[in-house]
């Protein structure tokens, strides 16, 4: 289309090239989204004709303590995972930069391997890690440090931590890779000039490095937040679709699953699923509207 010249001409070649993307977008995003919205406004009838119930399912969530527990758990899980992953990834990226060049590549790949595994497979492996007193975490970390074994999948004080550990294991490597690339992309002359001017390491990190890698950090942050809110496969394998003892690990998508597939209420489940949107949007709003100059990398 050539709008700039005031002409409306469709370039069919471009339309044809873009068509598969839009077809897939409609098929796997638009249609399921609208179907889900339709479901959320219908009664929970599993068999037979459903009827329109308006906002009944959404209003019922307002007074549902389990729903609010799921919201709280999901926010807590997200904050903990993001803090752990980004903090550790930044450290790991710096450490990798100091590595001998020949092993940096294989080490970086090794870090990324967990992120390449399907989440279900990873969760099955983590059953061995969390498996009671014989589990790897208890055998290699908890007991050697002199603590009592922890039942990671039953003790309500540790259930959410188990989900955080699993998510952190999965994504730390990938985020390390992104941050490593961002660190490598810093202009050398800026860093050299700062060093010559006597800026110490901490000041270089906070005043120069962080602002320069801010766009990558923002990408990692948004990626992790969205993934945490969408977390299901891992907790399903670990907890069988529940939230564990007293809903200690109940997440929003797990609750949507329970509503739909345990309670037989697809309408209620759809409402829980769609209710995630404002929560996620809120978190992303807080992230994106933090000091804008920082995210634009203008702080240096």
């Amino acid at each position, binding site marked *: 289309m050539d709008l700039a010249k005031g002409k409306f001409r469709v370039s069919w070649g471009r339309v044809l090239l873009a068509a598969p993307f839009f077809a897939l977008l409609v098929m796997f995003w638009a249609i399921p989204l609208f179907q889900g919205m339709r479901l959320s406004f219908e009664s929970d009838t599993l068999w037979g004709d459903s009827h329109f119930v308006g906002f009944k399912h959404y209003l019922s969530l307002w007074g549902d303590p389990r729903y609010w527990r799921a919201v709280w758990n999901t926010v807590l899980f997200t904050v903990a995972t993001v803090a752990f992953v980004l903090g550790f990834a930044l450290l790991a990226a710096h450490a990798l930069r100091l590595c001998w060049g020949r092993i940096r590549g294989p080490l970086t790949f090794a870090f990324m391997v967990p992120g390449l595994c399907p989440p279900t497979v990873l969760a099955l492996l983590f059953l061995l890690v969390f498996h009671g007193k014989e589990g790897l975490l208890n055998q290699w970390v908890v007991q050697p440090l002199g603590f009592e074994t922890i039942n990671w999948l039953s003790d*309500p004080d540790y259930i959410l931590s188990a989900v955080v550990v699993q998510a952190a294991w999965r994504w730390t490597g990938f985020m390390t890779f992104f941050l490593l690339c961002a660190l490598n992309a810093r202009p050398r002359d800026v860093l050299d000039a700062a060093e010559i001017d006597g800026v110490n390491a901490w000041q270089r990190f906070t005043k120069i490095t962080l602002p320069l890698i801010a766009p990558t950090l923002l990408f990692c942050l948004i990626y992790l937040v969205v993934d945490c809110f969408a977390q299901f496969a891992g907790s399903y394998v670990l907890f069988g679709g*529940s939230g564990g003892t007293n809903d200690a690990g109940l997440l929003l998508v797990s609750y949507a699953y329970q509503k739909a*597939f345990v309670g037989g209420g697809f309408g209620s489940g759809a409402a829980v699923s769609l209710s995630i949107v404002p929560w996620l949007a809120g978190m992303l709003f807080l992230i994106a509207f933090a000091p804008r100059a920082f995210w634009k990398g203008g702080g240096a």
Partner: protein
Amino acid sequence: MAASLLAMLACLSRLLGAEPVNIWISSQQDKIYYDNMVRLYQKEVDPNFAANVQAFGFREMPDKLAIAFKTQTNTPDIVQLDEVFFGMYLQGADTPFVDLTDRVKKAKLDVDILPQRLELFSHRGKVLGLPQSLSAVVLYYRRDLFEQFSLSPSQFQTWDDVMRIGADLVAENQSFLALDPSYFGILLRQRGGHLFDEDGGVLPDFDLAVDTLEFLGELAQSQVGLMPDRSTIFDPVFFGGDVANNEIMAIVGADWYGLDMIQQFSPELEGEWGIMPLPAWRDEETKTDSVRTSTFAGQGLVIYKGSEVIDESWEFVEFVMTNREANAQRFLQGNSFPAFKPAFEDLRLLQPQPFFGYDSMGQILVELAPDIPRIAMNPKRPMAVFMIREGLLSGIMYGEGDARSSLTRFKEQLESGGGPPDED
């Protein structure tokens, strides 16, 4: 022209009985049995009978079924559905399953199937499914460990005996009983209590429920009972860990648990298992004992109302339920003990079993069958079982409130919206 030809071919294939009956089964192990039953049916009844038997995971199959019913796409004809999931499909005025009441009466199955089990798959006076198993709960014990600690089954007449002897075992660093959240319902039922009453009320015997949950908590805290690492005895990891390491000496389980799970996941312990009735609950005031069995779960066969081969499906289901060989093979192939009373006289079901140390599981089950408690089926039963499994017992163990407050919360959640919503 081509469309007409295709339509004619479709009708012709139906007339020839070529359209297969789609059967959904809840486990690979059961699929083997039903594949065999299809062959047996073809041999003895209808050589033209065609069936497509598909196995899905125990938890995955109900999910897939719910989606199939909701979308009316790729629906099965016959489904093997566990009673703990059955209630989910009872919401609303109508259900997706064929009313089998008249067919059951005509086949005299209302007389020949144990009434407690037939009621389990009934709702509002209609028979909607047929039970595959007796699901009588017994105590499986380790003969070798009993010998090691100089114990005999006759010492465990009551649950007080379990606690008393168990305490002595704990002093020797040995736990007696594996624990599982399902024991709450099992033991409550053994004592005459219920999760739901006939009117849908939750925990109508509330004080009995509190006492039962407190007992289980006591078993856990005293370490007479040991909760498996993954908090369930239904996980293969339980057999590779707690069982293989001799950490427990006994497991409460139904007939299908011993036949299917114990035989499948601890084959190396063949001959080391024994079977006895459950310890009884003794009423100190009246000096009477409860029944020595209970019930939990168990599969049933239901027919989808939208099936195009309802008659063919029913004939196959009726065959599986009534055929002497089908009932015997269900037991002999390690599936479950049938709920079909005429099968109780089949000597093959009463033989001593080498795997269970030459105890006759069949004999014990037949003796316990009349005492199997009734379960009032309720649409909220799946959610109740789910909530019990996922938090009730472990909550007590981790100090998340006492039994009374936990059960009060459980009751409130279930009554306020833990299950299928009210009809609008």
